[in-house]
């Protein structure tokens, strides 16, 4: 079985984000594997360990995204591929899902593509469902458990975490699976894994390598524009500290919250 996990390199979730001259900044914080993707990477490795075959990590991004791919290799992915090209820059979900679909099609033998729920930079969560549509594969977004997988029969039974609870679905492979946090506990890269990954030669595929039509990628292939990014307005006012015995505090707070009409 061939499992592909799509990852993105993002600023560390602890970073203090800012905007300078219209560009997003994250201070001294490093770039990491998108935290949601760690669960998808772990699931890819577990599937490979359980059912055999291989796990490939795929990232679309700048050259620096190879560091994120090295983390995938260090955790236990077998191969990694960087999809990188100046013409892919500025792609929205429409164009990104197109390019990823082209890369998956080039691999040819993929049974499952895994994603984290969303990337913590753009936060759209649109690429997994878009890729499923592009490929015409079963869309299993918000998956919290892969309950059964029959590689020979190419069937899957998954549990999806929706607003009202868990939805149990069955589907046919190939499938695109979006994961949520509770699906597993991601492992740490092993010492051996880190050593192996540091020496790995990660191939880069260009837009031409995967047969992208130039008008379907980058700003031309995108429907969306996001010309302005700005910091949140600061919350007005300062905290009003309440003091006294617990009962006195409770009385004061109840008065205030009822007056604010939030209860």
């Amino acid at each position, binding site marked *: 079985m061939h499992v592909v996990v799509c990852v993105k390199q993002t600023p560390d979730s602890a970073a203090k984000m800012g905007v300078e001259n219209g560009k997003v900044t994250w201070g001294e914080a490093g770039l990491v594997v998108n935290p949601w993707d760690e669960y998808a990477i772990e699931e890819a490795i577990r599937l490979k360990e359980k059912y055999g075959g291989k796990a490939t990590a795929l990232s679309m991004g700048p050259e620096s995204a190879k560091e994120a791919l090295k983390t995938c290799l260090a955790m236990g992915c077998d191969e990694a591929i960087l999809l990188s090209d100046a013409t892919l820059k500025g792609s929205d979900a429409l164009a990104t899902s197109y390019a990823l679909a082209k890369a998956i099609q080039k691999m040819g033998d993929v049974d499952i593509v895994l994603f984290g729920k969303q990337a913590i930079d753009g936060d*759209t969560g649109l690429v997994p469902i878009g890729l499923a*549509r592009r490929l015409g594969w079963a869309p299993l977004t918000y998956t919290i458990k892969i309950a059964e997988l029959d590689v020979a029969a190419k069937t899957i039974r998954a549990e999806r975490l929706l607003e009202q609870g868990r939805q149990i679905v069955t589907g046919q492979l190939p499938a695109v699976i979006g994961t949520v946090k*509770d699906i597993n506990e991601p492992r740490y890269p092993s010492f051996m894994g880190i050593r192996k990954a540091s020496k790995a030669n990660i191939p880069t595929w260009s837009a031409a390598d995967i047969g992208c039509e130039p008008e379907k990628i980058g700003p031309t292939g995108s*429907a969306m*524009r996001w010309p302005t990014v700005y910091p949140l307005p600061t919350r007005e006012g300062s905290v009003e500290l309440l003091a006294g015995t*617990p009962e006195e505090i409770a009385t004061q707070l109840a008065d205030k919250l009822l007056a604010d009409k939030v209860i």
Partner: protein
Amino acid sequence: MTNKIWVFIEQFKGVIAQSSFEALGEARKLTADLGGGVTALLMGQGVSELAQAVIAHGADEVLVAEDATLAEFRSEAYTAVLVKLAQEHKPEVILAGATTRGRDLLGMASIDLGSGAIADAIALKVVNGVVNATRPVYAGKLLSTVMCDERRPQLISLRPRAFPKPEPDSARTGTVTAVSAALAEDALPTKVVEYVVDENRVSLADARIIVSGGRGVGGPEGFAPVRELAETLGGALGASRAAVDAGWIPYAHQVGQTGKTVGPDLYIACGISGAIQHQAGMRTSKVIVAINKDPDAPIFKLARYGVVGDLFKIVPALSAEFKKRLGK
């Protein structure tokens, strides 16, 4: 079906999602700039009786697709209906709630329609006939203005509770038109087997009041007073990542960057220091109350009311007080 603004009405077991009503309210506001009326698309099985409530909340026309293949939301089946109708009637804007279903539906439809999807908008404004949407990025640490200039329709999901729910007007009138499903069962790659629904669970995204516990609750048992206060107030129980990662409470309760993003009227943080990742998930709450032992905890910078003290003394006192006030 000639209206320019459409709204996807999400229902689960015959109950319309709050975010769909909020989208209807926002659709009506858009008609002031874009003209025309509001068309709503309602799908399911045995759901036609919900059409009147959809009209009362702002629709002029309701398209109802009823079929066994639509009984449960499946993105492929629902997308096929939406895309077919949109290709025929060419709406300018399609709104939905930014729920798991609304996000998937619009994301999938955007591929078929070759247009742009905007996920999780918190404000809309029409500029030169184009909807400019404000949406949080970097987990709410920054905001971005996004738009789909040329391609149509503009597919926009609205964050639950970011827009007011309109008051229903039972005197409103509108038309109800039946439309058909677009795919047969054997063309669908997934089947819904069952739901495991937690009847007692209040969805964090829809909650008006959230009471959350963090590292300061000290263990699974420490959530008992926090849970009691949430129940007293009819609110939902939240948690910080620290408490979830410690295994004290399931992930479904997590508020923050790798959990849920919420915006209730009242957020009471008990024993939560307020790491930047937690703030990202709750800072749009209308009123924030912080209860923490550490007077330097960052949560106090966000809070309107703060109590520096022991949550195990303060929280039970609050529950007792509210039980009295609310006559429970």
